[in-house]
Structure formats: C-alpha cells, structure tokens
C-alpha cells in the first residue's frame, strides 16, 4: 500500500502546475557553489550581461565584488540601485534598497549573497525574505548561495568542516528556485586560486581558512553541491513529465512524521527527516507530544526553536497531547495517513524499559503495523543532555524539598516521643502516613525524597539496633525493604496521578476558554461588540494587549477594537494583512515592531489582523489556542461582511424596484394624455362624424398634462425650499370657491361651511387655493359618483382649521402618514395620478407653518376627513369692512 503505482499524475499535482503557470510571480535562479571563491558572482554577472544584450531590463540590487577586478569589470553597463544607508548604533551601514527596487520594477534584479542577514532595523531579518518579496512582486531574481548556508545541509557541513555556520537560508527557498546553476570548480583549481589570493575570505576567517579548504572537505562539499543540483534537475524532469503527461513511475505521496521534543537531539532528527523527505519527494510533518510533563523555561525555548526549525524547513507542525508517547504517536500517524515515522535512538534505561514493557522504540515497532519506523542515532556533536528532572531548577521545587524535609523531621520527633509507647512498627505506619500526606501537596521529586528520608530515618532511629543503619533481625530487613518499596511506589503513583490531573485541567481550561470565546463572541449582535468581547477575552487569557483590525469600507486596514496602533505598528499590521503571514515581534519579518501580528485567515482570504503586544513569546499551546481564536474572529468578520453585502444588495434591489415603479408611473401619467392627443388628432384628420368630442378629449388630456407639470414644478419648489408664502388678508370663501371651480365642473356636489370668525384670514391665497384644489381632486377621485364633499372652516388654537370630508372608503390607519409622502398612493386609491397631490398639500401647509392630517370622519359618516391647520390671524369680514 505504501508505494502504489499510479498510471497518471494525480489531479492535485496537475492543479499545482496550473497554479504555478497562472501566477505571474518572478522566476528565481540560484547560482550555487560549494564554498566561497568558486566564482558564483562572476557567473551571475556574466549571465546578466548576456540577458541585457538580449534586451532584458537588468539592475544590480547588491553585488559583493570583494575588489576583484574581473568581477568589477563585469558590473560595467549594468544599472545599479543605490544602496540604502542605515544608521545603526552610531555607524552608517548600507543595505540593499528593497523599496527602491520595487518602485523601479526591473525585469531582473541581481541580489548577491542570499544567506546574508540584514542589518537590524530593516524590514526583514534575512536577505532571502527580500528576495521572496521581489519574486512576489513579479520581478525575476538572480542570486548566489553556498551549500553550507542551506538549512538542511548545515549540520552535515559542520560535521565535515568543523567550522560553525551562522547564516542560513531555509530549504524552501531552494525548492522555490526555478533554476539552479551549479558553479563548479575542481578542488585543485580552487586551491590554486586560493594560493593566488583570488578568494576573498573575510578578515576573521583567514585563520580558519586552511582548515576549511582542505582537499577532503572540498570534495565532500562539492559532492553535496552536485547532489543538490542533481535533485533539482530531477525535480525539473518530473515537472516536465507532469506537464507533458508523460506517464512514469509515479509514486503515491509518502508522508513522513518526525517526533520531536525539547531535546537538542531533535534538531538533528528534523534535519535528517527533511533530507529523506526531499530525496523521496515526500511531504513531512513534525509532531510534539505533550505528555503533560511541565517544561521549564530552557526546555520551552528549545522546543520553540525546534518547532520553528521544522516549520522553516517546510514541515507541517502539530502538537498533540496524550499520556503514552508510542500510542499517541501511532494514533496521530494513522489519523494523518503517515507512512513513515522518524524517532531518535533513545538513551535507554534497561530497568525502566523492562518495567514499561520495552523502550519507546520497542513499543513503537511492536504496534506500528503498516507504518515504517526509522530510528536515527543521536548526533555525536550534540552536547550530552538528559531529560530535565521535572524542572529541578525552579525555586518552587526547592521550597517543596524543604517542606518534605520538615515533614519528615516533624514525624521523626513525634515518633521519638512515642517510640517507647507504641513500638517501631507503628512509627513505620506513621512515616507512611507522612509520605501519603506529602504526596497530596508536593510534586514528584520531593515526594520521592520524603519517601527515602523516612525510610532512612526509620532504619536509623527506630529499628534496633538504634542509631545505626544496620538491621540485625531478618524480618526487620524484609519489613524495611517492603516499607521502602511501598513508600516509593505510593509517592510515584500519586505524583503521576496529579500530573495527569494537571494535564486534564489544562486541556479543560483551554476547552472552556474556547467555548467561552465562541459563545460570547459569536453571539454578539454586532461585529464591533464581538471584536470588543474578543479583545477582552484574549487580553485576560494571555495577559497581553490586543487589537483587532479589519478592512474598512475604504479598503484600508482599520482598528475594529482594542488599543490604537501607532503609524509604524499599523504598517507592520498592513504587511501581515497583505502578505497573509504573521509579522512583527517574535517573527522573522519586521521583528523590530512592538507587537506580533497574526493574519485572520478564512479559507483563501484574510479578513483582518490580530495584533498582540506581549512581554514573552507565546508557548505552543497558547499559540494554538490563539490561532483558534483568530479563526473564530476571522469567520465572524467574514460573516458580518457577507451580511452587509447581502443587505446592501437587498437595498439596491429595493431602490431599483422603487425607481422602476416611479418611472413607470411618471411615464404612464405623461404618455396617457399624449396618446389621447395623438390619437384624437389622427382621427380628426380623417374627417370624423363628431369632431367636437375629439376636441373635448384633447382639451381634457391637455389639462391633465398641465396639471402633472404644475404638480412636478410645485414639488420641486417644495424640495428646494423655494416656497415663500406671501401673507395678505384674503376672503376665505373666495379662495374656496376658486379651488372648487378648478377641481370640478359639477360644483353642486360640494358643500361649503365657513365660520364668520375666520371669513377673513391672513394667508398666501395662491398656496391655499392650490392646497384646497388638490384636496378636492383627491376627494372627488376617491368618492363614489353622486356623493357629496363637505368643506368646513373654523377657528382653532389661535389659527384656522379647514376640514375636507369625502364619502369614499376612508383611509386605513397604516396609510395615514405614508399618504403624504412623494409618489405614494393609497391602497384604495383609484388609478391615475402620480401620488404628488397630497405631498404638495403637506409641503405648502408646512411652508406656512401649518400641518395636515387625515382621520376617519368625525361626524359619524363613512369617509376620510383631511384637516388643515394654519397658524394665521383671522377675523370676520365685517371687521375688515369696518376698519377699511
């Protein structure tokens, strides 16, 4: 099952190829050398010159010529981006100007010395990160690299040469290279060049150089370089075969798993696995199994380092918890479809192994079934290391040892006092009680110390002969032996129980925290509230200062909740957001920042950024919990965004509908009378029998058109605030009569009752007439034929109230306010009309400081009653007449 023959490339790999072809990222070419001095820079410049001749836009990002004249000569004619000057601790240093290159956007940029570490204060820690950013921007890059700087080759090289390597690049960038050109030189030639002084070694390295450049070393390094190039060529061939659908011996994907811990040996294991994985084209994972044993600071740091190393080497890193390592490891392996597991050759203890039923490796192999197990020996060069004894260095532990000793002391004193009264066996039980007590509040090692001390004290003080360790009686020997075993086992078992309990509790705490987070955050009504709650919980749980950022309306990252960020920090957050990678403190990118910025991933998108300001780096489990929180937040932000999209789409659709209705009604109102006029005119031309009736139709249609135009103009005047009432004393009856005449030809159906007290009003007669005419038209339109309309005017609250009552169906209460809005028509309204009349009445009433309302008729009859109230002065016509 492990190696299955597949007849053709699997879809996954084809997709990968399609993706690679689709993206227009830059191409990376690495000039690889076995060691300094083989002429990589020279080869790179030569290739660049050739490309420039072919018309490619080439610039030099950075080049180290080390004063060699031949190399210097080759830079002639190539454009050079000036280096950026950075002031660091008083001295000015220069560094490749990444932003200038990005701004210049050449087709190809030359970046020498890929393994270079940037000066503190640069955007990235390492130069290869600059290169990645350039590639991402679609710029091709030529660069140079020595094998010893490749992460996975580092310990091999160190073994060969004995010289430490400080600057490294991850293997992923070598894998990422589209082309690797080996710059090869035979060891003899190189040594010759060395003797001629043509190799620059740096000032400090001169002393070590003789050792480094021994012929044996060079041969070994050359072999490594050749192998890497061969691997690359193999990869290219495979990719070519994939592209051309050439069937070959496709192997199913192998999955390697390496078990790592806080031990320094793990580093070697990781590199080893990486090498094997690359050679067999397998994917690999690294797993840390948390058995519940607490790690001390040193171990935690080393653990982090190991995990980071695995991550940089391209492993998928996981942590899982479980009591028994071999079982947990195999369970994890099966869950993840692992075909091979890599473990370190352990430092075994025969006695302990026998008790446990074999060493870890034995147990693993016995239960592994179809999974292959690699056992890798510890690297010789690694420093000797024993598992930490449960954190012996911690002060808390020393206190516990003290407490154990005190407990033994106390019991001993009590025992001495009671020795003659109860006998030594009872004292033994007393000691056992003390051990039991100690196991309740002390941890493993103090318990074991207490157990041992009690045994010693019992023997020395209570077993005859007193004050010697000698035991004369054979059954006392047995008794002592049994006591010792019981005390130790008791202490050990209890300690284990507590440890397990602690693991459980920690796991439960995490589960509870996650539960609480999802409960409180997910149910928040708004995104703001959710973000606020999320920030509060993360702050509390990790004792950090948190900020949640999301993309705002302006497509820019905005603070959603939490502490505000400085401009500088904001830039770091933006970088994390755009590149979809963590940035800031404790990372390799922009590590000078105060905060750590984690992008909020949702599938392929990034919804926002979670910013943390913490004092210490987060532990692995904290980081995992945080990432779970981040996912929750991301989903929440995305959900909110989708909701907003849906909402605005709904609003847009609604307003589109409204617009269409409005347009339809306006065009209906205009086109109907126009159609009448056009048709009537056409009929008139063909000499009809009754031309008068056709002319009458034309007149009615023209009046209708005129009314529409007037209404539209009126509503425009109201909208623009151009209605300025001109008040004058008027005869109210005269205004009403004019309105009646305008509204209908059949004036008999309209009854008018005007109180004498308001027969003269100080109003704008034009506006009032227009209002009444509109109300009357509305009343006529909505009343059955033959019904009457009643107009009544009287004084009210220092003003005038005019009521217009009809005998129509009345106005439903839900229409009462809507009716006065523009282009709104009542549910029971008859066809025709734009729905402007009543809004004009309202506009004019308000222009005069008045109001309008509609109610059911108050006099008991069926129908609507429109009430106009105008706060204007009024008196009877009689007084006007007398004063005049």
């Amino acid at each position: 099952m492990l190696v299955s023959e597949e007849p053709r490339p699997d879809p996954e790999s084809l997709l990968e190829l399609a993706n690679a072809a689709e993206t227009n990222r830059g191409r990376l070419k690495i000039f690889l050398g076995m060691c300094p001095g083989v002429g990589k820079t020279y080869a790179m410049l030569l290739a660049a010159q050739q490309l420039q001749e072919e018309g490619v836009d080439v610039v030099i990002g950075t080049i180290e010529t080390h004063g060699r004249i031949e190399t210097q000569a080759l830079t002639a004619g190539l454009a050079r981006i000036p280096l950026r000057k950075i002031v660091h601790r008083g001295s000015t240093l220069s560094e490749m100007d990444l932003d200038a290159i990005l701004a210049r956007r050449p087709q190809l940029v030359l970046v020498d010395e890929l393994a270079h570490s940037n000066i503190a204060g640069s955007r990235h820690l390492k130069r290869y990160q600059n290169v990645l950013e350039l590639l991402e921007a679609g710029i091709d890059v030529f660069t140079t690299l020595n094998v010893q700087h490749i992460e996975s080759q580092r310990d091999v090289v160190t073994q060969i040469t004995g010289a430490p390597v400080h600057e490294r690049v991850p293997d992923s960038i070598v894998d990422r290279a589209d082309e690797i050109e080996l710059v090869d030189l035979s060891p003899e030639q190189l040594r010759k060049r060395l003797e001629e002084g043509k190799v620059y070694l740096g000032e400090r390295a001169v002393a070590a150089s003789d050792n480094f450049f021994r012929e044996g070393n060079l041969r070994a390094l050359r072999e490594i370089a050749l192998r890497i190039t061969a691997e690359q060529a193999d990869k290219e061939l495979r990719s070519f075969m994939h592209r051309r659908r050439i069937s070959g011996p496709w192997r199913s994907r192998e999955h390697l798993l390496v078990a790592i811990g806080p031990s320094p040996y793990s580093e070697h294991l990781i590199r080893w696995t990486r090498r094997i994985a690359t050679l067999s084209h397998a994917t690999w994972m690294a797993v840390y199994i948390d058995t519940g044993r607490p790690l001390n600071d040193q171990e935690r740091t080393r653990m982090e380092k190991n995990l980071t190393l695995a991550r940089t080497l391209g492993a998928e890193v996981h942590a899982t918890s479980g009591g028994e390592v071999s079982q947990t490891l195999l369970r994890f392996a099966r869950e993840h479809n692992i075909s091979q597991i890599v473990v370190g050759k352990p430092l075994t203890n025969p006695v302990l192994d026998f008790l446990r039923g074999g060493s870890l490796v034995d147990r693993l192999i016995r239960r592994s079934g179809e999974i292959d197990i690699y056992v890798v020996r510890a690297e010789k060069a690694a420093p000797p290391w024993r598992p930490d004894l449960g954190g012996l260095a911690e002060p808390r532990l020393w206190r516990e040892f003290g407490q154990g000793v005190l407990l033994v002391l106390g019991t001993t004193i009590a025992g001495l006092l009671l020795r003659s009264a109860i006998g030594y066996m009872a004292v033994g039980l007393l000691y056992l009680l003390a051990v039991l007590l100690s196991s309740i509040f002390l941890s493993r090692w103090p318990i074991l110390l207490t157990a041992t001390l009690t045994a010693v004290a019992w023997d020395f003080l209570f077993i005859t002969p007193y004050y010697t360790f000698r035991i004369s009686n054979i059954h006392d020997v047995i008794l002592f032996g049994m006591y010792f075993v019981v005390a130790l086992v008791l202490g050990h078992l209890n300690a284990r129980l507590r440890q397990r309990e602690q693991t459980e509790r920690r796991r439960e705490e995490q589960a509870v925290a996650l539960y609480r987070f999802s409960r409180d955050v997910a149910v928040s009504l708004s995104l703001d509230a959710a973000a606020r709650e999320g920030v509060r919980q993360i702050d509390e749980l990790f004792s950090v200062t948190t900020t949640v950022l999301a993309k705002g309306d302006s497509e820019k990252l905005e603070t959603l909740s939490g502490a505000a960020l400085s401009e500088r920090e904001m830039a770091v957050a933006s970088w994390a957001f755009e590149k979809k990678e963590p940035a800031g403190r404790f990372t390799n990118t922009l590590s000078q920042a105060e905060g750590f910025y984690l992008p909020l991933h949702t599938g392929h998108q990034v919804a926002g950024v979670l910013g943390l300001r913490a004092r210490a780096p987060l532990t692995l489990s904290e980081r995992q919990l945080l990432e779970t929180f981040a996912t929750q937040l991301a989903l929440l932000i995305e959900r909110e965004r989708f909701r907003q999209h849906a909402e605005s789409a709904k609003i847009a659709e609604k307003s589109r509908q409204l617009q269409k209705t409005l347009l339809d009604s306006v065009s209906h109102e205009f086109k109907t009378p126009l159609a009448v006029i056009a048709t009537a005119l056409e009929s008139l031309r063909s000499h009809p029998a009754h031309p008068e009736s056709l002319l009458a139709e034309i007149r009615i249609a023209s009046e209708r058109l005129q009314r529409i135009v007037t209404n539209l103009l009126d509503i425009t005047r109201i909208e623009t605030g151009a209605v300025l009432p001109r008040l004058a004393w008027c005869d109210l009856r005269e205004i009403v009569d004019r309105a009646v005449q305008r509204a209908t030809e059949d004036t008999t159906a309209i009854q008018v009752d005007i109180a004498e007290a308001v027969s003269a009003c100080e109003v704008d007669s034009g506006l009032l007439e227009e209002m009444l005419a509109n109300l009357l038209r509305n009343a006529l339109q909505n009343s059955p034929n033959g019904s009457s309309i009643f107009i009544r005017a009287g004084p009210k609250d220092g003003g005038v109230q005019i009521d217009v009552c009809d005998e129509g169906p009345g106005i439903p209460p839900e229409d009462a306010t809507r009716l006065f809005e523009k282009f709104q028509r009542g549910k029971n309204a008859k066809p025709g009309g734009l729905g402007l009349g009543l809004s004009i009445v309202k506009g004019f009433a308000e222009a005069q400081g008045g109001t309008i309302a509609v109610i059911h008729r108050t006099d008991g009859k069926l129908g609507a009653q429109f009430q106009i109230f105008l706060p204007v002065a009024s008196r009877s016509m009689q007084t006007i007449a007398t004063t005049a």
Partner: protein
Amino acid sequence: MTNILVIDDEPQIRRLLRVALEAQGCKIHEAATGQDGLIAAASWRPELIILDLGLPDLSGLEVLVRLREWTQTPVLILSVQDAEEDKVRALDQGADDYVTKPFSTQELLARLRVLLRRNHSPEEPVFELDALTIDFSGQTVHVGGKPLSLTATEYALLRELARHAGKIVTHKHLLAAVWGPNATEQSQYLRVYLSHIRKKLAEAGFPAEAIHTETGVGYRLLLE
C-alpha cells in the same frame, strides 16, 4: 362586424379607441378593471382583446395568464411600458402583439387586422406571401417559382416565422421551437441563422427586410 374587448383603466383611451375602431365597423366593449375584463371576455366572447398592462386591480399580465387558461382569442397589449423585458414577458405569456402608447391609430389598426386575419384563416398546408411560397407538407420553399435551398435549421426558423406571419415571434419561442426547450437563452444562434436566411432570400429576389427585427424581443415576418 368584429367584436373587440378593450380592457384599460383610462376612460379617455377607451373613448378614443371606441371612436377609432367603431369607424372601422367594429363593435366595442369596454372594461375598466381586470376583473371586469375577465368577466366580459367570458360572457361576451370577443374576437380580439386589447389589454392595458397597468390595471388598478390585477396586473395586465395576470389577466393575460388567466385568459390563456381557457381561450386562444388574440390579445394585443397596449401599454405605456416600453422596456424590452416587459414586451418579451407579455409575449412569452401568450400575448399576440404589443403596441406602446402613445400609438398611431393606423399602426394599431394594421396590427389588429393581422391578428384578425390569421384568426379567420386556419392553418393551411401552403403559405404564400408575394413571391415567397412555403409548402409545409413538402417542406420546400420557393421564391418566384424557383426553389430556395435552405438547411434544416433555416427552414425550421422560416416556417416558424411564417406560421405566425405578421406577429412578433419572441427569441425564446423561436429557440424552443427549433433547438428544443433547453436552448432558450442562446439568442446568438438566431442572429447567425436569420442573417443566413435573409441573405438567401435577398439573393433569390425576395426583400430581406420582410423579416423585421424587433430589437431585444424577437422577429416578425411582415405581411405588408
């Protein structure tokens, strides 16, 4: 004497249609609402219905659908709505023609004549229009006595237009009739094939303009 039912809520339009149609010797019945119109159509059995889309109670489309449940009486839509989608919707729901307000009386009368004529003459095995002759049973097309060679698709399209000569045939209708019910969105097929038909007709001496494009709606084989 032709009985025509006018369903329109505008009294003026109704009065004018009455004047114009009665002058042509038609008998007019008016309905101001959709409900009244449906009742009148059932009780009075008109030969043709003129229907407005914006009615106070039911929408004109609803009236059309209810009419089509029981009668194939030609329906001409007379509406102010002049958007292509409105026309297509009404025609696809079973309307026979569509005239927008304001309208020319002459054009309206011409359209009504087409609808009435077709309704009077049940489908015949041979269609003739000036020099064009289509023999439905023999599946042959002649222009001025000379046979015209058409592909199967072209013939099917021309036959569909001829069967509804004078009326608008919507894209959807043509596509469904020729390519089947699953191809009702591919109106680009039509453009290609109709340009072929027009070219062949023109080469044979029959005016290509006889196949009139109703932009965004469909095609019409003009009778006059």
